[in-house]
């Protein structure tokens, strides 16, 4: 009975309602005395002794009690409740409600136990999280391995002053290494500041802990994206497709779940004369209706794209505090990421053709933290092309922007034409031959009708091939390697040379004939790759050689400016090497020898 829908999750029990009960610095004493009277596991903090004010996270503590409810994503909770509804669609209502109650109560108990058993602590070097109801899990994360710390505040969380902390390492593939949902917002900020402070200490830069929290709020403004740009980004980007996709998905879901019900409604509408059902399928679709529906959908898509974009990317701001980029965005639910500059692996400047005409680009910054899957990579929604170089120089110190790019030899055009025309030719061949070879597939003659239109693909793709060829280029400086490609959407990928992990060159039979080579430059992170497509053979060989040399022995280029502030200026051996040589504690002041091997 879909009209009933799943009832809202049951109201929070007394435990989760205690929002005013936060164990802040302020009422920690009050909480301590309260612990004596109430049973201690209802309290936000784990039962511990006094808290060291210098290292507030040294003793294990629990998440905020509200995480019983807010600790799971809403979608997941709804999904858990949808199942009993769907399973008992045919059963009487009271059974559905009963089942819902049972599922909700079990879920609540599990969440409560999970909250009780989950503690975290940070002693200045290691972030520890212990969790698990039956099988216990202890996770220790060395501060040197942290790639990115993100504070996320959902709309509901913001109402109650709560936030989630997500910590990423280079290894985290599917989900963040540590995901603390939810903690009081000031704890989240303090924890991030503490992590940052000890990262600074590791780098040998003693910063006063006090000024650090201030720095969180201040810092040097790098970029602010005005709301008008967010709107332009919405109507010129892929988010226009969000609504059609959602509607399509919903229709499919609805069709599968309550198809008969919808059919009933349509039948009723036809009876009432609300829908043109009198002459179904025979006269074909009513084109006026289709046109109106399409226009409506288009309008709705634009509105939806704008709303989604403004909510997500409104107030987009990048600040730079010392060596870290602070990126914040979002109108209702906000997201604050910190990307240490030295962790930036890849920067992609993208322009689709509409944005090119308008003179805009988007910039995507990737660190090695992998969990992000499009979400947590930092993407600047839109900025004027003239600003790109300045932003790049802020992200990658000493890089003045996109380096000089060298275009590829004319033979690359032939490959480009081949790449674009091959699929088009195949399609044309199928469309022209299919009705001849297998006449029965085209009873209605639709394919024959489409023949001339398909031919249009050939010139269009040829033009696109030329466009793509003209974009192909690559460049290499002492600091950065860059490559440009793409026809409809042009991407310029830049990777710091110090981050190059490995280099691969590939030459197919045709490439060998044309004297071309494709070079793949690998950096850390899922799918993080700079692809130099169809470079000239000799240029590619030089690129391969120079990049592997850089990758094998990264030499920092110390300019006077960097000498003062750069991370390379210090040489403490503390920074953990997570290579196989981990077991070796290197002698301090290890000197570099160019090549000690015989």
């Amino acid at each position, binding site marked *: 009975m879909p009209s009933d829908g799943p009832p809202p999750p049951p109201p929070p029990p007394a435990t989760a309602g205690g929002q005013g009960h936060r164990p802040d610095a302020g009422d920690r004493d009050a909480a301590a005395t309260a612990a004596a009277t109430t049973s201690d596991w209802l309290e936000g903090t784990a039962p511990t002794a006094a808290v060291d004010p210098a290292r507030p996270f040294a003793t294990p503590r629990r998440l905020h009690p509200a995480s019983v409810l807010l600790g799971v994503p809403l979608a997941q909770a709804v999904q858990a409740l949808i199942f009993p509804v769907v399973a008992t669609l045919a059963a009487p209502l009271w059974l559905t409600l009963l089942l819902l109650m049972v599922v909700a109560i079990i879920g609540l108990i599990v969440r409560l136990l999970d909250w009780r058993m989950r503690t975290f602590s940070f002693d200045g070097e290691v972030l520890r999280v212990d969790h698990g109801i039956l099988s216990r899990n202890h996770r220790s994360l060395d501060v040197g391995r942290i790639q990115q710390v993100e504070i996320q505040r959902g709309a509901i969380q913001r109402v109650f002053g709560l936030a989630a902390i997500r910590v990423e390492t280079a290894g985290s593939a599917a989900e963040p290494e540590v995901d603390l949902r939810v903690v009081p917002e000031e704890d989240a900020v303090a924890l991030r500041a503490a992590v940052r402070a000890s990262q600074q200490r590791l780098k040998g830069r003693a910063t006063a802990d006090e000024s650090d929290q201030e720095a969180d709020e201040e810092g040097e403004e790098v970029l602010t994206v005005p709301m008008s740009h967010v709107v332009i980004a919405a109507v010129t980007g892929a988010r226009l497709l969000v609504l059609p996709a959602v509607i399509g998905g919903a229709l499919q879901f609805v069709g599968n779940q309550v198809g008969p019900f919808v059919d009933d409604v349509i039948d009723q509408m036809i009876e009432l004369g609300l829908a043109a059902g009198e002459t179904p399928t025979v006269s074909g679709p009513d084109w006026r209706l289709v046109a109106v529906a399409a226009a409506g959908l288009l309008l709705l898509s634009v509105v939806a794209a704008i709303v989604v974009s403004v909510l997500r990317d409104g107030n987009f701001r990048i600040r730079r505090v010392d060596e870290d980029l602070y990126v914040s965005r979002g109108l209702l639910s906000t997201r604050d990421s910190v990307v240490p500059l030295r962790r930036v692996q890849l920067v992609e400047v993208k322009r689709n053709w509409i944005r090119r005409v308008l003179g805009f680009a988007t910039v995507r910054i990737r660190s090695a933290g992998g969990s992000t899957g499009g979400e947590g990579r930092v993407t600047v929604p839109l900025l004027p092309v003239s600003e790109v170089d300045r932003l790049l120089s802020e992200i990658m110190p000493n890089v003045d922007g996109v380096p000089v790019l060298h275009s590829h030899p004319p033979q690359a055009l032939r490959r480009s034409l081949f790449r674009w025309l091959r699929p088009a030719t195949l399609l044309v061949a199928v469309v022209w031959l299919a009705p001849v070879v297998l006449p029965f597939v085209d009873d209605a003659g639709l394919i024959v009708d489409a023949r001339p239109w398909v031919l249009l693909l050939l010139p269009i793709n040829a033009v696109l091939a030329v466009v793509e060829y003209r974009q192909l280029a690559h460049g290499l400086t002492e600091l950065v390697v860059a490559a440009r490609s793409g026809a409809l959407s042009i991407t310029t990928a830049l990777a710091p040379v110090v981050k190059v992990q490995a280099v691969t060159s590939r*030459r197919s039979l045709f490439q060998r004939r044309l004297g071309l080579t494709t070079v793949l430059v690998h950096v850390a992170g899922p799918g993080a790759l700079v692809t130099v497509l169809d470079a000239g053979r000799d240029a590619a060989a030089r690129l391969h050689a120079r990049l592997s040399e850089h990758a*094998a022995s990264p030499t920092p280029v110390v300019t006077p400016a960097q000498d003062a502030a750069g991370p390379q200026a210090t040489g403490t*051996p503390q920074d953990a*090497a997570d290579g*196989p*040589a981990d077991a070796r504690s*290197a002698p301090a002041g290890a000197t570099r020898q160019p090549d000690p091997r015989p």
Partner: protein
Amino acid sequence: MGWGQGGPVTIQAGDEIPRPGLDDRERELAPAVITSWRISSGLSWLLPGAMAIGLAVVIGPPWTWLVLVLLLGLVLFSVVFYPPMRFRRWRWQLTDLAIELRYGVLLHRRETVPYFRIQQIDIAAGPVDRLLELASLQVTTASASGSASLPGIAAEQAPQVRAELLARAATAVAEHPGDLRDAV
């Protein structure tokens, strides 16, 4: 048969790093890898081959023999002729700074993985490889796509190669000041 005499590698500060002393000349894979490739590609043809023959027996259109001949030709090529071609193209080399692989018959590849970037080294041997006394060695970096794998080297050589790679990686890391030592 175990993993050979390599054993766990522990390196203390100031230690002379043990090094099997593999020089930097170009190397081939172990010739037995041809047999291994033959067996694996032969096995991979079993199912489609059986299906094709079954279909031919059951349906048996007049041009069945053509399909079967084509199939036989493909099998013959991929089992008899292709593996030696592949072997002849395979070279690997421990250069000054990196392990370098060159291989590929139609698509020539050249992969360079610097010792400094090595995160993990795996040795693996399937049942066929174990019969042929082969092992494969996989070198992983922090990049998902940028890893190198040696598909068939002599099983008793694999631990040596690993030890050599580890030693070179340790040296490369020790050569760098602390800040740069973190390869990610």
